[in-house]
């Protein structure tokens, strides 16, 4: 019934339900040291080796804020086209947990550093705007390890106190695909800004997913459940799917949905209630008396604004205008900052006589396939932008055919070899000398007189046979365009 296939609806008998999703994304701020202490934030260190007296909440230890983290949050706010608040306040969120050494998390509750903003998603059926409610700075907790010791839980505080940005969306998302696009877009913006590396495997980007369901066309929102700490897009989508169906089933059975915090069990692919956190809901937020209000000036913000690089939406617009590529192609190329950088470098290295179509096809085709196969980031590409640009130019100026280019491309992967060197070594240069090609074709016609006559008598599909012969005899090096022309003339 739906007009486009981008709708995600759950049907039970005559009832059609729509799913309403909001995300609280926790993005680790890219910084050398923690939000309130001078410990390193590096990932993967030995347990408890990046813990200061402040991070472990020793008596009398006090927080002192990292300026860079404040700048990173404001930059992200600018990237989300959001209101930057000149005055914000750090509160304490009080609860007890083994990996929360202070017994409270320093966060911004009432007065966040960044207010409302927007993110634009490029969906197959057009653009969708998602509202940002707020962005605030807070401390990460440590890590509880439950499976190393049968009797005990072990606590590693390396992450304790690392700066996080909590980015809260409005409940504007409706489908798992939109959730995926939203996360990818946020990640992309933050990677452009250098404010979060977006590495989900290392936990730099995690999300709490708020899900509720409502009858389609109903204005009234349903009771929502919060699924805590989901750390991959795939799991978010699976969790939403499970949770939305669970809620619909409850409604259909005439039962009530409890507003609660749930956990996504990745092994069983289901969400379940987190009873352990139930009594901890009264967080007793109050302004942290160890910290004063965070105030920034207009100049401070302006200075950061002037340092903001071109962001994906603007870059996309420019790519379309400047390089005359399609919106679809541009979306792919700008989605990740390293891809965009690579593409722009290829374009720059191609020089004046550049062929955009070739560049786009080679990057999104051959190169992406290789990276995908080898599970590599484009920043670790085995072929540099400089050499890929050379290869593309060699195709463009007819030095090699597209087919030869693929062979060369394969060879280039071994140590980022210069395509010209490969051509030289392997003698793969395209034969484009008309005289040499004419001689070659004369010989083929001569050797296949009967077929030439058949062709002249109207058996036109034999033309392909002659092209094939020419390529075979030349070892694939004959310029196919010239071969075509000469064959037409001679036959």
């Amino acid at each position, binding site marked *: 019934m739906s007009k486009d296939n981008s709708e995600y609806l759950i049907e039970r008998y005559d009832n059609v339900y729509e799913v309403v999703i909001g995300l609280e994304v926790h993005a680790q701020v890219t910084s050398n040291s923690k939000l309130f202490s001078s410990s390193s934030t590096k990932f993967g260190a030995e347990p408890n080796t990046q813990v200061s*007296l402040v991070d*472990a*909440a*020793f*008596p*009398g230890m*006090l*927080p*002192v804020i990292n300026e860079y983290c404040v700048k990173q949050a404001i930059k992200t706010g600018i990237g989300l086209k959001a209101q930057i608040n000149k005055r914000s306040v750090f509160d304490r969120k009080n609860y007890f947990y083994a990996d929360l050494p202070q017994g409270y998390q320093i966060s911004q509750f009432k007065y966040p550093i960044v207010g409302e903003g927007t993110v634009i998603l490029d969906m197959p059926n057009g653009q969708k705007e998602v509202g940002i409610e707020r962005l605030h700075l807070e401390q990460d907790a440590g890590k509880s390890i439950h499976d190393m010791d049968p009797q005990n839980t072990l*606590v590693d505080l390396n992450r304790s106190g690392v700066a996080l940005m909590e980015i809260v969306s409005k409940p504007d998302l409706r489908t798992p695909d939109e959730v995926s696009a939203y996360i990818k877009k946020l990640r992309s913006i933050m990677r452009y800004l250098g404010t979060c590396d977006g590495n989900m495997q290392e936990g730099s980007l995690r999300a709490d997913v708020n899900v509720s369901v409502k009858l389609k066309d109903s204005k009234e929102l349903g009771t929502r459940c919060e699924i805590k700490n989901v750390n991959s897009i795939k799991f978010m989508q699976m969790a939403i799917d499970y949770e939305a169906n669970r809620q619909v089933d409850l409604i259909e059975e005439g039962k009530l949905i409890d507003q609660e915090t749930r956990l996504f069990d990745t092994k069983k692919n289901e969400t379940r209630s987190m009873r352990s956190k139930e009594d901890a809901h009264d967080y007793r937020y109050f302004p942290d008396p160890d910290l004063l209000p965070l105030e920034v000036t207009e100049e401070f913000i302006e200075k950061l604004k002037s340092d903001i690089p071109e962001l994906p939406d603007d870059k996309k617009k420019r790519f379309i205008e400047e390089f005359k590529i399609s919106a679809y192609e541009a979306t792919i190329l700008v989605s990740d900052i390293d891809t965009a950088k690579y593409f722009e470098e290829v374009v720059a290295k191609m020089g004046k006589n550049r062929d955009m179509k070739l560049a786009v096809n080679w990057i999104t085709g051959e190169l992406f396939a290789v990276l995908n196969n080898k599970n590599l980031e484009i920043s670790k590409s085995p072929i540099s932008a400089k050499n890929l640009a050379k290869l593309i130019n060699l195709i463009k100026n007819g030095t090699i055919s597209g087919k030869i280019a693929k062979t060369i491309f394969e060879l280039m992967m071994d140590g980022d070899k210069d395509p010209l060197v490969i051509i030289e070594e392997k003698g793969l240069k395209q034969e484009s000398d008309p005289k040499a090609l004419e001689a070659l074709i004369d010989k083929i016609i001569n050797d296949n007189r009967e077929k030439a006559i058949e062709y002249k008598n109207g058996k036109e599909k034999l033309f392909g046979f002659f092209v094939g012969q020419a390529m075979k005899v030349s070892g694939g090096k004959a310029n196919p365009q010239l071969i075509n022309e000469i064959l037409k003339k001679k036959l």
Partner: protein
Amino acid sequence: MSDITSQSLTSLVKNIKEKNLSSEEVTKAFVDRSEKSKELNSYITEDFSNAIDKSKKFDEKPNLDLKLPGVPMAVKDLFCTKDIRTTAGSKILENFVPTYESTVTQNIWNEGAILLGKLNCDEFAMGSSNETSFYGNVQNPIDKGLVPGGSSGGSAAAVSGQLTPITIGTDTGGSIRQPASFTGTVGLKPTYGSCSRYGIVAFASSLDQAGPMSQNVEDCALLQEVISTYDNKDSTSIDFKRGQYSKDLTKDIKGKKIGIPKEYRVEGMPKEIEELWKKGIEYAKDCGAEIIDISLPNTSYALPTYYIVAPAEASSNLARYDGVKYGFRAKGENLTDMYEKTRSEGFGAEVQRRIMIGTYVLSSGYYDAYYLKAQKVRKLIKNDFDEAYKKVDAILTPSTPSSAFKIGEKKNDPVSMYLNDIFTVPVNLAGLPAISIPAGLDATGYPLGLQIIGKAFQEQEILNLAYAMEDKISFKNKITDWWIK
């Protein structure tokens, strides 16, 4: 020996600098007297043999340019001291040995002083009689069975009983000034942000402030000069131009305007306090000060406000004592059980009571009615002072509504115990500096103090006023050494 321990800090410093006394002689004298004074229970942790070793080392290569050259000093056990157990008067920190030093104590050692030991105090500085300490009551050197006040009770007793030439305490609602008043000593609570809170076990972060406790105003000024530094490890430390308080100390206070707030004349205030205050006014006049009647209309709301703000902050500050990283841990069946047993066995009754009050006033549904309300009233109280300081340079009040009481007298009546801080609490809420100086005796012969409250950052001003008045009052503390057999 006894003439060493009865000397003021200033005179000891002078004698060491002039090589009339060695650090070792001085240190040994205080160690010896401390050893004989166990009955006062001033110390929680003694570090006497180390102190003597350090004094010998000092004497080998004395640096006499320092402000506290080789002077021994015991400090309140709320200051974290590197490698020396720091308990905050609590069982929960019974075995806690910091690997770091508080900024305030570091400043003191940097000027050549030597740690004698850690002084008793109310548990987490919550108390007005030193009776909440896990390490037992402290006796007031003034008389047997008398509280020394609190929370810096051990510190006050140690100075008054001459177990240390001078000390430092902390003051959240009166914890320096009230015990100073109860023991006939001088106590200064500096402006909030003057002394770093780094390394001081926190009670209520927005109110806590360290300060000197001494035999006289001159000593007080000298120590304040040492401990007050800007510290980038404390976000609430304030970078203002600190004075050379002892060098600039003067008795010339002619023309200074001193305000007398009518709201401090509280109902049921003993006559002798009233008398003392009147005498204080006369002394101030004698010194050439001008007396002006002022009003601090919201004074009576200060104590209720304090008993919301301080417990609220404390309930959160004390959440870190959970048996996980350091300190006492009780066995528990699971994490929550471990927390609950650790905290109910590790904290004493008063601390638990305040954590409960604090948790309640911050809890959902009550925040606005209590915590937010208290913050607003706090603003009104501060406004009162701002208004008053348009007319006067300082304010003179009694330090406490009574003299020292008997041990056990108020232990089971929290509200009457809290009322002890009625004159001191407004100062913490407004973040102002105030000094208590001994000004007379009650009918029983127990000391009584007067409080001089200054403008923010004007420590010099109130030190000068106290210095001038001290001269006129010429108070003599009656220490009989009753506890020394």
